[in-house]
């Protein structure tokens, strides 16, 4: 039995092709994935991301707890509403999940985690909480839905569809969130475009979804979400990093604070073992196929593997993230095994696309 989001009926009415997505029945597209992708790059599109889980952490010692639990440093969160991307690590440095934590008040943080890892994360954080004995409360919010509205015209269309929201959210800078009545509006996303991620009561989800559609926001499935995030150089948990890799091997060194004296789960392991592998971007140069996860990458320093690959609708070429031995530099040429051939690909530094513009040189 698949789990359903509060928008399941709306997706079916709109003619979505529904697929199993980590146990959730979700729309992969509503017709053309490529057209949905372009709508987000050029105008505005929306995604049902209600399968993701918001978890509210409340109590006096919330910041101290997160300072130890997360690889990124919550002391970067000084202003109310500020968001921070972080990995949740095991003691050996392996990535349990990646998440966004929002600082609302000193005793109230909201953490948004991936769907497939939500139960594992709750168990892990719950065990850490028991050890810390800080009297904190961890509350999963399955009563909430989430809609991501993304694209250069996304914010203005949200303001049209949700009366009063403009005054509440126009001043939000990127990676900040605010509460607007029952709505939690964050200027965050997973596409490389401007926009909002709106968390709201499940009972209000369909009416906002319909209002956004009426304002001209295109319905987009998780297929387009994947090509958009890959163009934006954003990792997908379970593909680009797992419990078998640490964040330093996953292009996420920028999210790990090793400089401060702060101790955190996984720090000892990260300091003890310098990374031998790195995550890089690839652009396929030769014709002959599409880069896909698990294809072998042959480099001058040894073999690697593609972790995510696709056809990039914005570049009109195939792109990928690949884990390769350290020492492979941007501009290097590597060979990717596709079927019975070795095709040349160029190493680039992600992102490939940001805010509608191609960032890698042709």
């Amino acid at each position: 039995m698949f789990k359903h989001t509060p928008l399941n009926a709306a997706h079916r009415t709109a003619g979505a092709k529904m697929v199993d997505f980590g146990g959730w029945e979700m729309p992969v597209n509503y017709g053309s994935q490529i057209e949905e992708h372009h709508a987000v790059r050029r105008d505005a599109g929306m995604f049902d991301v209600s399968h993701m889980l918001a978890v509210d952490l409340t109590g006096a010692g919330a910041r101290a707890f997160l300072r130890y639990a997360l690889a990124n440093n919550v002391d970067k969160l000084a202003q109310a509403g500020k968001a921070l991307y972080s990995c949740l690590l095991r003691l050996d440095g392996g990535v349990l999940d990646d998440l966004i934590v929002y600082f609302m008040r000193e005793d109230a943080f909201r953490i948004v985690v991936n769907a497939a890892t939500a139960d594992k994360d709750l168990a892990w954080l719950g065990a850490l909480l028991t050890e810390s004995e800080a009297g904190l409360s961890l509350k999963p919010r399955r009563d909430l839905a989430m809609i991501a509205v993304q694209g250069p015209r996304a914010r203005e269309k949200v303001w049209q569809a949700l009366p009063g929201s403009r005054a509440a959210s126009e001043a939000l800078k990127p990676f900040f969130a605010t509460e607007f009545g029952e709505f939690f509006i964050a200027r965050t996303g997973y596409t490389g475009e401007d926009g909002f991620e709106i968390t709201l009561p499940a009972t209000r989800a369909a009416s906002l979804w319909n209002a956004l559609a009426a304002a001209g926001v295109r319905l987009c499935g998780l297929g387009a979400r994947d090509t958009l995030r890959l163009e934006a150089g954003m990792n997908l948990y379970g593909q680009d990093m797992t419990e078998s890799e640490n964040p330093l091997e996953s292009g996420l060194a920028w999210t790990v604070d090793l400089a401060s004296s702060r101790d955190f789960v996984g720090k000892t392991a990260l300091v003890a073992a310098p990374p031998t592998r790195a995550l890089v971007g690839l652009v396929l140069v030769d014709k002959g196929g599409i880069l896909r996860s698990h294809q072998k990458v042959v480099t001058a320093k040894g073999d690697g593997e593609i972790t995510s690959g696709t056809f990039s609708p914005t570049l009109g070429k195939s792109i990928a993230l690949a884990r390769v031995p350290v020492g492979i530099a941007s501009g290097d040429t590597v060979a990717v095994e596709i079927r019975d051939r070795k095709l040349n690909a160029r190493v680039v530094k992600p992102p490939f696309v940001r805010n509608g513009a191609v960032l890698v040189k042709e």
Partner: protein
Amino acid sequence: MNVPANLKYTESHEWVRPEADGTITIGITDHAQEALGDLVFIELPAVGRAAKAGEAIAVVESVKAASDIYAPVAGEVVAVNAELADAPEKVNADAYAHWFYKLKPTNAADLGKLLDAAAYTKVAGEG
């Protein structure tokens, strides 16, 4: 489901049109393009290649995945539709108007094993 009555079909979702000169023209069905999603890459066989029945002979890749295209019967490749290499999306627009390749069957009697429209409709409906 769009399954023209004048064509023959395979269980692996190719359509087959017998021509007056004894060759057959092969493409993928509307059901196949729908299931694959937006096509972004097509690799066609070399003209002159000999194919066994059921042999993987061409490749289509959509944004989602790669899939093989199979030879419906044994034969020799006599022509390919080269325009598809640069415009795979045409197959999404009209799967029956854009053929992949033409085959000269080794044994014309093999065509009798292909599915008719009613039989294929049943196959596609099941999965």
